[in-house]
């Protein structure tokens, strides 16, 4: 049989191709382009080779920001993962209250980043914020614009408040998929609550927990809006995470080259 040749399927792929090109490929290539050039403004660019990369890799500033970033992501994962699992384990399995819990859990996830930042910025203020004022009234020296620990604590608690429910919802979905017979079998075997968790619930949640870790790590690694709104990266540089550092470099100082180089490095 003769094959009909029809290449029109190309047109069906075209929209996606254009969309991905304009939303991802071209901006990314622009960044790569900037990373190997220098400019003094007026849209005049000079070839700089790998100069910016050497500079970025040798700069303490970039390593410090990366270090802060890793510590931040590590801390929030270490808190959100166990806390999320704990919350999921204690949520009702069915009935009216299960639905109520699910809606309550989903609420923080619906709030945009900058709103969460603003909420906590006001919440933590010593003069008008409920949290800041209360802590102050107890005699605790809390001021996120001046204290290093206060700033970190605020940013971490804010992230935990915003994102633990994502982990909880994923873990809850994992728990719901375990057939009741597993619990019965464990009961008949006289397994303790811990053993049920360790040998049934945890292995059965493994898949969704991996996804939770992945999502939370990626999201926290590019965190920008929330700390930017609350602390602006301060006090000093103490909450200047990678994205904040980048924006400072690229827009604040108009060092496009180093910013692009550091972006390219951290992306890999």
């Amino acid at each position, binding site marked *: 049989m003769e094959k009909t040749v029809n290449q029109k399927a190309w047109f069906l792929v075209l929209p996606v191709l254009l969309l991905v090109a304009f939303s991802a490929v071209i901006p990314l290539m622009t960044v790569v382009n900037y990373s190997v050039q220098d400019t003094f403004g007026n849209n005049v660019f000079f070839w700089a080779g790998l100069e910016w990369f050497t500079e970025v890799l040798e700069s303490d500033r970039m390593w410090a920001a990366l270090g802060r970033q890793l510590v931040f992501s590590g801390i929030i994962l270490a808190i959100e993962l166990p806390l999320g699992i704990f919350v999921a384990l204690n949520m009702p399995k069915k009935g009216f209250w299960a639905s109520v819990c699910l809606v309550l859990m989903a609420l923080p996830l619906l709030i945009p980043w900058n709103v969460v930042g603003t909420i906590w910025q006001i919440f933590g203020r010593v003069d008008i914020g409920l949290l800041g004022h209360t802590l102050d009234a107890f005699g605790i020296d809390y001021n996120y614009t001046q204290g290093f620990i206060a700033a970190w604590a605020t940013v971490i608690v804010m992230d935990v408040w915003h994102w633990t429910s994502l982990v909880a919802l994923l873990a809850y979905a994992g728990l719901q998929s375990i057939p009741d017979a597993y619990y*019965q*079998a464990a009961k008949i075997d006289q397994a303790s609550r811990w053993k049920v968790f360790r*040998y049934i619930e945890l292995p059965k949640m493994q898949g969704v927990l991996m996804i939770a870790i992945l999502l939370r790590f990626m999201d926290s690694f590019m965190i920008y809006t929330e700390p930017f709104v609350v602390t602006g990266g301060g006090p000093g540089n103490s909450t200047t995470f990678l994205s904040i550092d980048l924006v400072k470099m690229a827009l604040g100082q108009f060092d496009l080259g180093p910013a692009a180089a550091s972006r390219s490095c951290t992306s890999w």
Partner: protein
Amino acid sequence: MTLTLDGVTKVVNGQTHIHPTTLTLQNGTMNVLLGPTLSGKTSLMRLMAGLDVPQSGRVLWNGEDVTRQRVQDRKVAMVYQQFINYPSMTVYENIASPMRLLGKSRDEIDRAVRKSAELMKLTPLLDRKPLELSGGQQQRCALARALVKNAGLVLLDEPLANLDYKLREELRVEIPKIFEESGSIFLYATTEPEEALLLGGNTATLWEGRVTQFGPTPEVYRQPVDATTARVFSDPPMNFMQVSKTGGKLMFGDGQSSPLTGKLRDLADGRYVAGFRPNHVELEKHTADAMVFTATLDVTEITGSETYVHLDHNGVRWVGLVHGVRNLPLGKEIKAYLDPAHVYIFGEDGALVVPAAYALAA
């Protein structure tokens, strides 16, 4: 050792799942709990295991009341329709887990695990994780776990229902052999009459939360106490028709009648229900006594060596199972033959009045 249910009931949200049930299971016996889906098989097993507490009645273990005893404190093992194993443990660890929890010594555990693994043909697979096994092997692992525990009561809740046909046949033959040696009480729940007959032992038929009959399996099959039991213990279900006894004859309608023989002679005049199994419906006249009925052929199903014929007899559906692959005209009237020796006579309340002559002879 015996397990006795003494008038136990189970009511959930005002719905009765188990009506008052009294049943005694003897040590070292294979018992089959036969009933359709939702008849209460799992509910009854949960009561026996102690996973649920009955609303009323008592559960006795060797005559000792254990009604309020938790499942942990009874010696019970259970295997489910789903393949339940601990996912992160190897097959060896899975089989060993109940003994570990009982605090047995390492040597004792090793010996028991290897022995039951051998019985279940799992020896080459001991280092694998359950998810790396086939469905049949996963269920063998669960069975080995139940075996190794040396429990007094082993409950098997439709353990083969999720397996494919071939594996089911294989395990069905092995299970009674393996469990015979252990000396525990075995209770095997199933929806399939065929499975009950293959497993032998005793059968309790369950219908809408009531045990309708309990006794040696062949006896329950041949002499069901009522029409419900006969319906449960027949696949496809038993066929029924209205009959009446007047004078010296049993009138079957369609101008057919049979003379009274054997126990039928003691029958009082009146209306009865005749029941006969699908395999006793014939499409040819094999015996001189056979009665003939005219029915419309609705559907035929070929199983390979046999054919199911769905007949419409004056608005009542009959199913027949006849030998050979038949090519029959659908929608046409055909003749169906029935030997009176194969007919059970039930009262209008459903209770068995006279069993079929063939069943008494067997």
